[in-house]
C-alpha cells in the first residue's frame, strides 16, 4: 500500500482511511477467516458497555429496498470480557482499533471510558444515538444539552485516548449536535448512525423487527449521510469520520469532498466482506490516476459555485 492512503486522524496514523463500522464487523475476528483484516485502516468494534447486554428478542434484522433495518439491541460482551477475550487476539492484526462504546447512564459512559482509556486500544467512539437509552427520560443523542454534557464529562476523564462522538441522523438540525460535541471537547465526530425506520410483514401483520422500529442503513441512506457530513463540516473544525451507505471507492471520494477525513464501511461488509479491501485498492488507483498525494487533498473541496 502506498503513502497516498496514510491518514492522520486525531493524531492517530491509520494506514488508510477505511475503517469498518461498529456493529457490522463484530469484534473484528469474525472476518479474519474471510479477509486479511490487517489491510484495513481500522476497525470500530461492536458497541461495548459496562456490563454484558443480551440485546433484543428476535427477529432483529430485515432487508428493505437497498438497505436493511436492524434492532440488535446493543448486544455485547461487556467491557471486561471484551478486553480479556477479544482484544488480545484482535491486537495481533496490524490495524487500528476503535472502541465504540455507550452507557445506560452518564455514570456508565464515564466508567466505560475510564476503563478503555487505560486499555490497549487506539481511539474511542462514543455512541450517543441509541434511541432507547435515556438519562432522566432524555435521549443523549437527540438533546443538545445532554450531548454537550456527556461529551464534556467523558472527555474530562480521558487522559490517553482521543474521543470521537457518533451522531444520530434522527434530528432536525445536526449542526447543533456537532457544535455541542466540539464545545464539549470531542476530538472528532463520526456521522451518521442509522435512520429510524420500520417495516411490516403484511401476511402476519407484525413488524419484521421485534423491537417494532429499527435502524435503517445501507446505500438507501447515503444521500442523507452525505448531506449531514457536509453540514457538520461547515459547522465544526474537528475532523469527521463519514458513515452511511458507503460501498464503493467513489463513495469515499464523495464523502471526502463534503468534508470527511476518514470513512467507515458498514452494511457493505454484509454484502461482501471483500468490499472494504476493494475500496482501498480502488481509492489508491483513483489517487494515483489523479496525481493526488493524499486523500486529504480532497477533504471538503466540494465546489459549490453554480
Amino acid at each position, binding site marked *: 500500500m502506498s503513502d497516498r492512503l496514510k491518514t492522520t486522524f486525531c493524531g492517530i496514523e491509520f494506514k488508510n482511511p477505511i475503517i469498518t463500522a461498529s456493529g457490522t464487523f*463484530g469484534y473484528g475476528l469474525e472476518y479474519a477467516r474471510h479477509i486479511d483484516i490487517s489491510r484495513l485502516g481500522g476497525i470500530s468494534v461492536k458497541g461495548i458497555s459496562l456490563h454484558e447486554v443480551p*440485546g433484543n*428478542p*428476535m427477529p432483529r434484522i*430485515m*432487508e428493505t429496498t437497498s438497505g*436493511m433495518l436492524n434492532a440488535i439491541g446493543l448486544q455485547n460482551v461487556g467491557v471486561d470480557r471484551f478486553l480479556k477475550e477479544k482484544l488480545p487476539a484482535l491486537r495481533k492484526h496490524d490495524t487500528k482499533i476503535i472502541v465504540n462504546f455507550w452507557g445506560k447512564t452518564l455514570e456508565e459512559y464515564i466508567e466505560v471510558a475510564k476503563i478503555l482509556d487505560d486499555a490497549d486500544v487506539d481511539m474511542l467512539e462514543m455512541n450517543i444515538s441509541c434511541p432507547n437509552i435515556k438519562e432522566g427520560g432524555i435521549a443523549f443523542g437527540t438533546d443538545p444539552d445532554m450531548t454537550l454534557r456527556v461529551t464534556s464529562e467523558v472527555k474530562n476523564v480521558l487522559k490517553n485516548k482521543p474521543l470521537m462522538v457518533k451522531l444520530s441522523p434522527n434530528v432536525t438540525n445536526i449542526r447543533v449536535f456537532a457544535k455541542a460535541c466540539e464545545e464539549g471537547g470531542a476530538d472528532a465526530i463520526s456521522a451518521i448512525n442509522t435512520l429510524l425506520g420500520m417495516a411490516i410483514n403484511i401476511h402476519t401483520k407484525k413488524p419484521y423487527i421485534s423491537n417494532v422500529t429499527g435502524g435503517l442503513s445501507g446505500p438507501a441512506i447515503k444521500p442523507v449521510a452525505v448531506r449531514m457530513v457536509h453540514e457538520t463540516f461547515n459547522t465544526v473544525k474537528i475532523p469527521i469520520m463519514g458513515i452511511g451507505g458507503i460501498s464503493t471507492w467513489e463513495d469515499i471520494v464523495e464523502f471526502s469532498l463534503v468534508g470527511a477525513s476518514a470513512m467507515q464501511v458498514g*452494511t457493505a461488509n*454484509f454484502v*461482501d466482506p471483500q468490499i472494504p479491501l476493494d475500496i482501498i485498492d480502488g481509492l489508491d488507483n483513483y489517487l494515483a490516476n489523479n496525481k493526488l498525494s493524499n486523500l486529504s487533498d480532497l477533504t471538503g473541496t466540494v465546489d459549490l459555485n453554480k
Partner: protein
Amino acid sequence: MLGKIIRNQKLNDKYYLLEIKCEEFVREAKVGQFIMINTRHHDYTSDPLLRRPLGIANIDGDKFTLVYMVVGKGTRLLSEWQKGSDISFSAPLGNTFTPVKEQRTALLAGGIGIAPIFWLAKTLKEAGCIVDLYYGGRTADDVVLIEELKEITDHLIVTTNDGSAGIKGMVTEPFIDNIESYDTVYACGPKPMLRAVSEIAVKNELPVEVSLDERMACGLGACLGCIIYVKEGDEVVQKRCCVEGPVFDGSKVVWDTVCK
C-alpha cells in the same frame, strides 16, 4: 469465492437445483454447512442488497449442489442465473451435523428442509447407517428429487398435507409409529415441525439434531442478527445460528423464543 454454474435446473414450479463447480469450496465443505450466495446479476445494483443463506445439498467431485425454493426477490433472481456464469458466495459456513456410524437413523425433512438432509442421508449411508427419510410437504410440489433420494435411503416415506403425494398427513405421524426403530434423529424444515420432532425425540430419549433457519445479514457471526436461544445447564444462552448453528441439539433449543 467464485464458482461456475454447471446447471440451474427447474425441478418444478417452486424448486430449483443449482450445481456449482468450485474445487476450493468442495475441499472445505462439511455436511450441514451452508453458504451465503450473491443473487444479484450485477454488482453495481443494490436491490436486493444482502446475500442469501442456502444449505449445501450435495457434494460431487469438484461440484456442489444447492436446492432452493423461489420465495422472494433473491431466489427469483437466482433462478435466472445462466449455466456457465461465475457466481460468488462465501466459504462454507456454520457448524455441521454430528456424524454417526452404523446407527439406525431417522431423518425428517419438511419442504425445502430437504436441502441439507440430502447430503446428510448420503453421508450417513456411506457411514454404514440405516437411513430412513420422512419427507413431508404441503402438496406434491413440495417433494422433489424422489428418485435420487431412494438411492441414498433405506426407506423413503413421503407425506403431504393434502395427500397429493405419499401418505396424507403430517410428516411426524409415520415417524412416531416407527420411533422404536431409531438410535438418532435429524431434521430440517419449518420451525413448528422441528419443535414437534424435537419434543417427540426427547420423549423417546433419542438424540435429535435440527438445522434451523434464521434471517441472516452477515452469515459470519458479526451482526448478531440470527440469535437462537439454547439451554446450557440451568442457563439460557445465545447462539448465533450462522456460527454456532445452523445445527442445534433439538432438546436444548428454547422453542418459545424461536421466531415463527
